[in-house]
């Protein structure tokens, strides 16, 4: 039971942590195809 609870805690921490890290690294899968940062406006 303790191993199971610890695993759930690790799962939550890892999920939140990786999401935070990827967000901070500026990574977004959605922006690969639809970001206006990728478009040159004006010249």
């Amino acid at each position, binding site marked *: *039971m*303790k*191993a*199971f609870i*610890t*695993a*759930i805690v*690790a*799962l939550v921490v*890892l*999920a*939140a942590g*990786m*999401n935070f890290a990827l967000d901070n690294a500026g*990574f977004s*899968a959605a922006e*690969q*195809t*639809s*970001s*206006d940062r*990728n*478009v*040159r406006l004006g010249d």
Partner: protein
Amino acid sequence: MTLLRVLLPLIFLVSFAGLSAAQDTSGDASVLTPGQQSLEDIMARQRGEDVPFGAELPLPLEGDAPPAESHLGPLGASSDADLWREIRADALPDARASNRGPAAKVLMQDGGMWWLNFRHGPLLTYGSLLLGVTVVLMAIFYLIRGRIRIEHGRAGITIERFKFIERFGHWLIASSFILLAITGLVSLAGRKLLIPLFGHEAFSTFAIAGKWVHNNVSWAFMLGLVMVFVMWIVHNLPDRTDINWILKGGGIFGKGHPPAKKFNAGQKLIFWAVIILGTSISVSGISLLFPFELTMFEPTLALLNDMGVPQLLGLGTIDATLTPQEEMQYAQLWHAVISFVLMAVIIAHIYIGTLGMEGAFEAMGSGDVDLEWAREHHSIWADEVVAKQGKPASGTQPAE
């Protein structure tokens, strides 16, 4: 909006190229350019015959097009059909896009429709069928065989089977896999199954949360996979006891159990299925999570061509040039198909670990199993543990 912002400049640029190309054409008006549809083609397709579309045919050479005056299209006397055929075949050498995304220059993509139909159709149908059949098989097995009991009753003495860290690794991969399976199925089948039940609003909230979970819980699965691999590979290398175990059908029916070490041949199969399929799901998942970063299918198809595999199967040389979108589509299909297979394997695993066998769950629950259970299912391992420990851990009477 964003799509329009991308498309409009591109179409604008490209139509200039098309205009100038169409102006200096000459030749016999009665001859169709390669790739151009004839009335015959259209009629045949309506009869259900398999007539290739323009993009699958060779492209017209420059100057091969019929004279401009034979067409009266939207551009007046010149038609842009050739141009659109080129766009469709992704064969515009001069295309430029202001969007810098990896797939920005592919305007039309024939493979997209096939993929979408396959994803909504056969993938969902056969995938759910596989899971359904597995559940039914487990139920039938339960009805025929019943629960596999500890034949000679509990010894009342336990020995340690899995350490804390092993159980932690197991529950990490198990809880993440179950979350991933549920949220993955929601994103595959939700549109068809859940929207009619809950409506668009509620499903949207649920699907967005599910996507967050699916994307971020994947890391726990990968960590669990690595842990399980490192901790248990030594116990899962095939050896001679496996042959005997398989020949005796694991002793599933009838009396008596073939001897086994820590893991029997059936468990080894589960282990390798988890490792191989789990790795494949992880890699294709990473390529979906970081779109257009990993190119896996084009080199694989090219390698298969070089090795002569499709030729051997009578498929000829397969087309190994994929658009970036096609790469992603194949990654999605692969990810889903392999996941369905692993889900089926895991359904069987969960059955045997809980309902199917008395005394099994404790191995992953407390970590300690009854000595008699161990002797029946893992005799060689049980003897080793007893020999090493001198005597079993708990509940034992002093020897003297």
